């Protein structure tokens, strides 16, 4: 198998790019060379992955999975059976290769876009260094054949996220946002770590192959599986910005926009979804946790969407939209619609990368303005950006035949029809869909339509250069046709994505004893309802922001309290600060350090020293240096000893 044996190159190309640019870039600051090397290595990865995909497709279904071991990594090396031993090894299967294609494909487009977007920035080389490092880490996360290497990628992408959010480090808020992202992610990683330990304790292994095959013969619903699944999910809520750990993602918008597109929309934030999908056989043993996953996902989908309704920063709207869409993906996972969730990961990568890059083009064209209240009427200045942005908006709103429709609808259908689903989950998901259609339309209208609300003296909107618009057009094309890979079975066409992924998820679904539902009538009905809902969301936005532009202000005035709560994102940040951050700091400072350390322990130490010093001062007087008095003491001592021996 020639392609598979070269498959680790997929991971090594970005590493090479990282090392090349990182070690030489600061010296030879040639933007063109750096841009070409940086994007080129990603393209090579993508091309290799395509080769692997074709080879895989040519094989019979059961022979498509393979692993490649490189070298031993962490272990005890004591030769004891059952002790830890993990390698750097990669696993190529239908799921990991699909994810690899998304990461390298969308990643490549965003690299190309960055050539234009970052032009003239003095940290140009640094940017591409971090970006290549990110792809390297992300591919480790995706392709790892064991939990520990996945964790390496997991934390590695977190580091890149930290570095890139804080890319413009001279600003105050970027440092805050970067630190917050890293620390909140670490809270999730704490869960991931404990989950891994529990897996090791239960299965005596951390390699996917052996854990998953051991899991296939385990009983369902045991407490240990509950905890394993739950702890891993805690990790996922951190990385994929779900309730309660979503708070870092909106702030992460402080980074350059290509970063928001690549890391905080298309790839990294979907890592949690990927991890749950990867561990589907484990989740199949913990139906209770699947229910939690579904509820958290659905709740996050609506919660974030409501915040998205009132935000005025173009990137913040998209950030909350991302959190919301990630919620849909978890909803899919929770009802064991794993393929549907991964399908949404894919379509979301297309249209959300498109929307972010589009917003980047707007920000670029508006001289770093991000407030949509100071935009309006931009469609004539940025025609390509406008057209592609609209495609992305329609796709996310769920209008057929755009990509988002197919993936979102499959999730909603499963949320309704799956034995793990319920009408409640469908209703919540459908409500989120209306909100999504509304806030996206609002965003498009306020940015591109209506009166020009910017200062014409200072701002001269202009279309972005080719390196930026070409990726937009490509992504717009994908956002249009991408969904056709997953046409519902009820339409009588093949669902390519589901068929492709089926062998990966079949064991888990089998374990859950999920039957296929063939009620086409019900599916069509729900599909129609959700399209109508999406359309009404768009219509409402059009009514309120184009026709009766006074309505939004009237509503905001009437429901002032609700509006303020939404505008301030439910005060979650403030609550965390008051309940967790500040008490911990105060207790550590006032009680632990200045209390326990300084007063109690050092007080005891210094006190003892003082007592000894005083005692020594007193006893010192005995040493008079007069031989006679020493003799006296000696005699007294002898007498005392003899007396003691005689009388006691």
């Amino acid at each position, binding site marked *: 198998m020639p392609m598979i044996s070269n498959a680790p190159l997929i991971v090594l190309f970005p590493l090479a790019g990282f090392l090349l640019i990182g070690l030489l870039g600061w010296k030879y600051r040639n933007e063109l060379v750096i841009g070409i090397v940086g994007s080129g290595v990603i393209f090579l990865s993508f091309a290799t992955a395509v080769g692997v995909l074709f080879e895989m497709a040519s094989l019979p279904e059961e022979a498509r999975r393979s692993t490649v071991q490189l*070298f*031993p*990594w*962490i*272990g*005890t*090396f*004591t*030769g*004891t059976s059952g*002790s*830890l031993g993990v390698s750097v090894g990669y696993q190529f299967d239908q799921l990991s290769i699909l994810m690899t294609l998304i990461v390298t494909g969308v990643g490549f487009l965003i690299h190309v876009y960055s050539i234009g977007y970052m032009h003239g920035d003095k940290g140009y080389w640094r940017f591409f260094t971090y970006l290549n490092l990110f792809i390297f880490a992300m591919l480790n996360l995706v392709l790892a054949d064991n939990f*520990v290497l996945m*964790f*390496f990628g*997991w*934390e*590695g992408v977190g*580091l890149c996220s*930290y570095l890139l959010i*804080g890319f413009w*480090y*001279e*600003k*105050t808020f*970027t*440092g*805050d946002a*970067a*630190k917050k992202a*890293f*620390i909140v992610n*670490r*809270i999730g*990683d*704490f869960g991931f*770590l*404990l989950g*891994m*330990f*529990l897996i*090791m*304790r239960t299965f005596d292994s951390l390699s996917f192959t052996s854990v998953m095959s051991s899991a296939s013969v385990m009983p369902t619903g045991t407490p240990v599986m509950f905890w394993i699944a739950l702890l891993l999910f805690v990790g996922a809520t951190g990385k994929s910005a779900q309730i309660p750990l979503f708070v870092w993602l909106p702030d992460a918008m402080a980074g350059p926009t290509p970063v928001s597109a690549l890391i905080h929309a298309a790839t990294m934030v979907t890592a949690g979804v990927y991890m749950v999908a990867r561990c589907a056989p484990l989740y199949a043993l913990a139906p209770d946790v699947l229910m939690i996953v579904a509820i958290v996902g659905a709740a996050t989908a609506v919660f974030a969407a409501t915040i998205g309704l009132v935000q005025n920063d173009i990137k913040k709207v998209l950030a909350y939209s991302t959190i919301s869409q990630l919620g849909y993906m978890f909803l899919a996972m929770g009802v064991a619609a794993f393929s549907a969730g991964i399908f949404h990961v894919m379509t979301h990568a297309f249209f959300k990368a498109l929307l972010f890059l589009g917003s980047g083009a707007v920000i670029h064209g508006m001289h770093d303005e991000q407030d949509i209240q100071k935009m309006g009427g931009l469609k004539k200045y940025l025609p390509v950006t406008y057209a592609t942005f609209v495609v992305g908006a329609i796709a996310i709103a769920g209008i057929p035949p755009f990509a988002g429709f197919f993936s979102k609808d499959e999730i909603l259908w499963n949320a309704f029809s799956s034995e793990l689903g319920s009408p409640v989950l469908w209703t919540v998901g459908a409500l989120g869909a209306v909100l999504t259609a509304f806030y996206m339309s609002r965003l498009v209208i306020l940015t591109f339509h209506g009166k020009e609300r910017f200062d014409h003296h200072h701002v001269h909107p202009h279309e972005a250069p080719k390196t930026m618009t070409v990726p937009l057009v490509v992504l717009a094309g994908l956002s249009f046709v991408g969904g056709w890979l997953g046409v519902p079975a009820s339409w009588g066409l093949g669902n390519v994505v589901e068929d492709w992924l089926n062998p990966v998820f079949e064991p888990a679904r089998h374990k859950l004893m999920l039957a296929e539902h063939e009620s086409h009538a019900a599916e069509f009905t729900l599909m129609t309802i959700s399209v109508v809902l999406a359309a009404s969301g768009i219509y409402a936005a059009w009514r309120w922001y184009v026709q009766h532009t006074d309505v939004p202000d009237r509503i905001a005035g009437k429901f002032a309290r609700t509006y303020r709560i939404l505008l301030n994102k439910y005060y979650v940040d403030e609550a965390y600060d008051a309940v967790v951050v500040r008490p*911990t*700091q105060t*207790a*550590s*400072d006032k009680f*632990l*350090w200045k209390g*326990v*350390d300084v007063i109690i*322990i*050092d007080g005891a*130490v210094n006190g003892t*020293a003082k007592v000894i010093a005083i005692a020594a001062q007193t006893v010192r007087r005995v040493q008079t240096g007069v031989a006679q008095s020493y003799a006296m003491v000696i005699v007294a001592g002898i007498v005392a000893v003899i007396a003691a021996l005689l009388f006691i």
Partner: protein
Amino acid sequence: MEPTASMTSSILSWTIFLPLAGVVVLAAMKNAQVRSVKIVGCTASVVTFAVSLFLWFGYDAAAGGFQFVERVAWISSLNISYHVGIDGLSLLLILLTTVLTPLALIGTWNSITNRVRDYTIMILVLEVAMVGVFAALDLFLFYVFWEAMLIPMVFIIGMWGGQDRVYAAVKFFLYTLVGSLLMLVAILALGYAASQMPGGQFTTNLLDLYAVGPRLASSIQLWMFLAFALSFAIKVPVFPLHTWLPDAHVQAPTAGSVLLAGVLLKMGTFGFMRYCLPLFPEAALRAMPYVATLAVISIVYGALVAMVQTDIKKLVAYSSVSHLGFVMLGIFSMTEEGMQGAMIQMVNHGLSTGALFLLVGMVYDRTHTRTIDDYGGLAKVMPVFAAAFLFISLSSIGLPGLNGFVGEFLVLLGAFRSTALHSTAYAAIAATGVILSAVYMLWMYQRVMLGPTRESGKYGGNYVFDIGRREIGVLVAIAVLVVWIGVYPASLLTKSAGTARNLIHMMDQMQRGQMPRYAESPIELLPGTAR
């Protein structure tokens, strides 16, 4: 743990005493010959490092056990001998010492300006004592090296330290001395116990005592264990015996801090593995939940207190308390993962924290302030320095791919899987250290390095400039090791595997009651105490 006589050359003794050659040369020089003095000091430590590489490449990991063993009668009447040898654990720590000493000297080339010759002598004497501690296979010899280490360190802090150096030096001295005196009593008692064995005689030979200690009656074992453990716990330091550390670190000159954190603290954890566990396994098992609890407290407490420090050096000092807590937890998890993790974590902490102190020293040399609030936006004026600082910080907070992760992961996994600890709570609470370390390091990093640059361009009243080639060279050397251990820890873990396996094997035997005991007539060490 039988010594293998595969290597009989005296390469180990050369490693221990080579720095003394430098001391002899220096003794003939004057303090004023600053440059020559530094060159001699560096040469001596670099040559020592080169010689120690023979140990690294010569140690046969497959054979395991003690190698490079040398034994020369010393005080024959008491069976005390000059007896040295190394296993995987000592090998790692000796290499750590011989790597860090030259790096500390080169990294602080211009930091010391007064009595440079005396200072260099102290550092070299310290190196002899440190390597000696790790190599000794005779308890008396060990004790001599242990105490000998104290003297140069007290002078380094007390003479070349900061404003409160005398208080810090005395505190360090007293803390350590209290512990080591009890240890001396226990050493003598153990030697005496050997003489009470059938056909036995007084000895301080560790390998002989390995057969004596485990056979002692429980109560005796416990007292001896405690005497050793107190001494080691102070050195680690374990909460609540840690308060000498922040003072000593803050007051010590940079090279002193580097060696103090990098090597000296490991003597405590090393002592637990070399002495406390194999000599008194039963007592160690009894003490296990208590020591593990203190280790977990050290991890969380050290991290929380580090978080609120206003002085960079103090922050790093408290972070050491936290990191060494991981080592202790690993040892007292009594699992192979835990032991291996503890050993590699010792090396990792030595490199990372050593490098952190070097970095703090570098910026202090420029600004003469260590107060976090005096900084801000330093990354703009010192970009290379900022990058290096971030890299080492990431190593310190255990980012996978760098060295720190390997140790922390193994330790936590070991503690979590440990059947002897009876609870996963130790590991679960300890794992919060993973979050807290990110909090205190990144918060400090942000306040010092990021944000707007000072308008005046002055820090602590000084204009600053980025680090130069000498400083970069030292940091690159450490960075290479950091990546190497992070990516391919097998090169270290295979060396220490034998030590871990032996200790666990022994503990297992102990737990299963298979340890050969004189159950019918427990040794009456002191009449009336052994029941």
